[in-house]
């Protein structure tokens, strides 16, 4: 009851952002098309990609685990907060789960805005926040057959401690 999700608050001027947690390959162009707007002169697409090395070990791939039912609303709420902080900005993001190979995109954030300064700021903020709070975990799989859960960040309760 204390934890009942509050209803989303939409400002009339900004459309709801787009968030998705998916096991399908990420399509940047499709996401950009979703957030495009004829009066927006700037579009920015960030892609996070699986790297071939980490901490000196050769990486074969990453297995992403997600708490999907929670990650999607958390992501949506982040995007909504970005749209509120940078009025005029439209934002969309997707995070993938499952087994990804080197070179595949695990996350993408698309932002459009009338001018470019806000696009850079909003995109960067979304990526920083998402890494702090999205309930998603990566298990790195190495070429030598080993694997490990990567160290992560502890999300802070948005209600604060008592």
């Amino acid at each position, binding site marked *: *009851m*204390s*934890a*009942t*999700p509050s209803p989303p608050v939409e400002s009339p001027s900004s459309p709801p952002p787009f968030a998705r947690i998916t096991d399908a390959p990420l399509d940047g162009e499709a996401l950009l098309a979703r957030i495009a707007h004829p009066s927006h002169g700037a579009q920015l697409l960030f892609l*996070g990609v699986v790297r071939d090395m980490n901490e000196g070990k050769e990486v074969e791939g990453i297995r*992403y*685990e*997600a*708490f999907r*039912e*929670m*990650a999607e*609303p958390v992501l949506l709420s982040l995007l909504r907060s970005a749209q509120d902080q940078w009025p005029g900005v439209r934002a969309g993001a997707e*995070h993938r789960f499952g087994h990804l190979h080197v070179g595949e995109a*695990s*996350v993408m954030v698309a932002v459009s805005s009338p001018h470019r300064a806000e696009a850079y700021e909003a995109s960067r903020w979304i*990526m920083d926040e*998402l*890494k*702090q*709070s*999205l*309930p*998603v*975990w*990566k*298990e790195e799989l190495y070429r030598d057959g080993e694997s490990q*859960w*990567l*160290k*992560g*960040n*502890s*999300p*802070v*309760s*948005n*209600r*604060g*401690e*008592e």
Partner: protein
Amino acid sequence: MEVDILFFALYRELAGTARMRMTLSSGCVVSDVVTRLKAGGGGLTSLPSQPVVAVNREYVPLSTPLSSGDEVAFIPPVSGG
């Protein structure tokens, strides 16, 4: 009352399961669940004493009171991106 407990990633491995049910007396808060799990033996004894928890898909403080049917998710440090 009964609540659903979910475990993810490292905590899922500690628990040896992704999901369990727990029967609680009314008035229990989240930290009572933590205490019960850590006292139960097995891998969950190494659960942190103040883990991050989401109730009904929102991050909440450990002092949050629980209701029947609540979903209590144990969230290891996140590493998305």
